[in-house]
């Protein structure tokens, strides 16, 4: 089993990480290419940058938007805070980066990291339950909307068991294998699913704004393409 673990957190991890970075870079490149094209084509080039920036910041730090579906929003907020902070600032992860690439940065105290890990698992499950419990979200949801939060919970739950073997019904190796395998799968899925919002979210307010900035001759060109220039209304 140790060989499998080494393989999963060695070459497979690097492959998944590379795939994620390249996949997200593609999303970013496509979006910025699209933004540049839309801005270039727009007939009116006075964009309300201030409002777009304010809306973007408000949604990156959404404290002012919690009242709409309060419980769901709070759950989602805690979930996001936990899953962003723990993988990056867990002392054990930083030690791996130190060993592999010689990089390090300040770590979260283990107690806080543990609390956030538990919060990540609990809120992931709560998000799925709330999604199922609400008719609004139940009719909207696709398979990935249920599967992804649960998949995100797996590396956190298994990571908790790795760090707290006394609580674990499984062997440390089994927990560690599950941890690295699920993390690898998750990294691989990020650019292929809605998890890509981790890089696209800062652009979406601008993207929506730009769509309303029409090219001056879009309508005329569509009429030409569809051979409707002289068609009576």
């Amino acid at each position: 089993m140790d060989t499998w673990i080494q393989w999963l957190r060695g070459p497979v991890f690097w492959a998944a990480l590379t795939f994620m970075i390249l996949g997200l870079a593609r999303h970013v490149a496509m979006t910025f290419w699209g933004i540049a094209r839309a801005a270039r084509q727009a007939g009116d080039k006075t964009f309300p940058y201030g409002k777009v920036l304010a809306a973007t910041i408000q949604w990156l730090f959404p404290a002012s938007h919690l009242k709409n579906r309060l419980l769901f929003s709070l759950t989602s907020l805690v979930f996001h805070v936990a899953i962003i902070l723990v993988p990056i600032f867990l002392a054990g992860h930083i030690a791996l980066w130190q060993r592999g690439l010689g990089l390090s940065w300040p770590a979260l105290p283990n107690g806080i990291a543990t609390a956030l890990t538990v919060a990540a698992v609990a809120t992931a499950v709560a998000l799925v339950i709330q999604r199922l419990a609400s008719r609004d979200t139940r009719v909207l949801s696709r398979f990935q909307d249920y599967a992804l939060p649960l998949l995100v919970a797996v590396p956190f739950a298994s990571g908790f068991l790795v760090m707290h073997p006394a609580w674990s019904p499984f062997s440390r190796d089994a927990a560690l294998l599950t941890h690295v395998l699920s993390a690898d799968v998750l990294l691989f899925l990020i650019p292929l699913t809605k998890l890509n919002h981790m890089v696209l979210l800062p652009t979406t307010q601008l993207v929506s704004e730009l769509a309303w900035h029409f090219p001056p001759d879009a309508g005329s060109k569509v009429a030409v393409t569809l051979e409707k220039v002289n068609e009576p209304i």
Partner: protein
Amino acid sequence: MDTKTKYSYYVEQKALEVTDRPRKFLEAFAAVLEHSNYSLALDTYARLSAKCGRCAASCQLYEATQDPRDIPCHRSELLLRVYRRYFMPSGTLKARVLGGFRLTDEYIDQMAEEYYRCTACRRCKASCPVGIDHGLVTHLARWLLAEVDVIPKALLVSVREQLEGVGNTSAIPVPALVDTCEFLEEELQDIYNVDIKFPFDVEGAEYVFFPAVSDFLLEADTLMGNAAVMHVTGGSWTIGTGNYDGINYGLFYSDRMLERIVNNVIGEVHRLKGQKVLVGECGHATRSAWYVPTFGGPDAPPVVNCLQYAHQMLEAGKIPLRAERIQERVTYHDPCNIARAGRITEEPREILKAICSDFVEMTPNRTENYCCGGGGGTVSIDEIRAFRTGPMGKRKAQQIRETGAKYLVSPCANCKKQLREICEDNDLDDVEVVGLHDLLLRVIDFGVPTPDQVTAPASEERTQETGVSC
């Protein structure tokens, strides 16, 4: 054949005779994506739609119906599904390997129904964590539907009259327009004892006036208020007999029509060697006119809404007001097209606070306001009135009732029509829906005694006529 059998609204007979609609719809979709700026938004929405359901909580229609098809995200998915299947490599690949969704006539009919249950008020946009603008998707979907001739007859007929008929959506010929304005001048003389002119075709005027043309038929007080403000402020303005209609239903169903109608506005300003577009009390006319810089290039005339003009003049002390203010309780409905993006929200309030003693807000308001329920051109579709004033207008009716206001002010021709119908259908008989200039007109001090001041015994009657009580 009754053309209302297929949808909730009437369409023209030719809409029922179009063949091979899925192919034509997709050809139109491809052309629009190629030439417009929608592809980036659709591509982004298709990739990261979170399906969190927050938009459901902000939609007044879904609040009333609890029908899943009225959830904004659910509605947008109808078009995004087509986009993914036919215009994203992953979707086309998936379809080839696994089969699945295909665009059909029935699916187009479903979109035709559901995209006209949305007023494109864009309230839900502010509640979407990933920034999806469902109003934008509705706007685009309606354009694509229009390319296969699915257009509510009420909108189509108006645009045809404007672009290929008399020249305006209400089919008012120039002589009738002139007669109407002369009548309004006489009214101003009779009621306020003041000589105010509606100037026509004045070359070189600073402002060329584009009200909702229906105001000439329905909103005499609003137009008299507009003229009075221009009179007391010494504004240089004119009405062009070549084009005197600010209405642009292209905004509601086709960017092709939107472009043509805006270009006609620009053309009239240039013909008269005017300097600016002055838009009357109309939300969508104002938002459409904000596309003047898009289509008009670097020489496009600036666009000013009459509320902005009046507010600026009031601030500058150029609108003298009588000591008597409007005593009855007044509330204000924000037209989505000028308020949602926060462009015109404070000017009308500051004017109303200056002229009214008892101004109360609806809650929520400004950028978070609820739509009147007739947005997106649906107010013109008379056959769906029960829907507009029922589930769609229920929330607004509740808001109005909670204010206890006598006067409900909304500076928008479409909102006013819808709000009047809401009041009629929801037992709000004591509420009077008016334009902002209607009230402003009543309190302007023209510096001359009004007939009621000249003839004392008539004062009580005149007070009723002007609506001002002391």
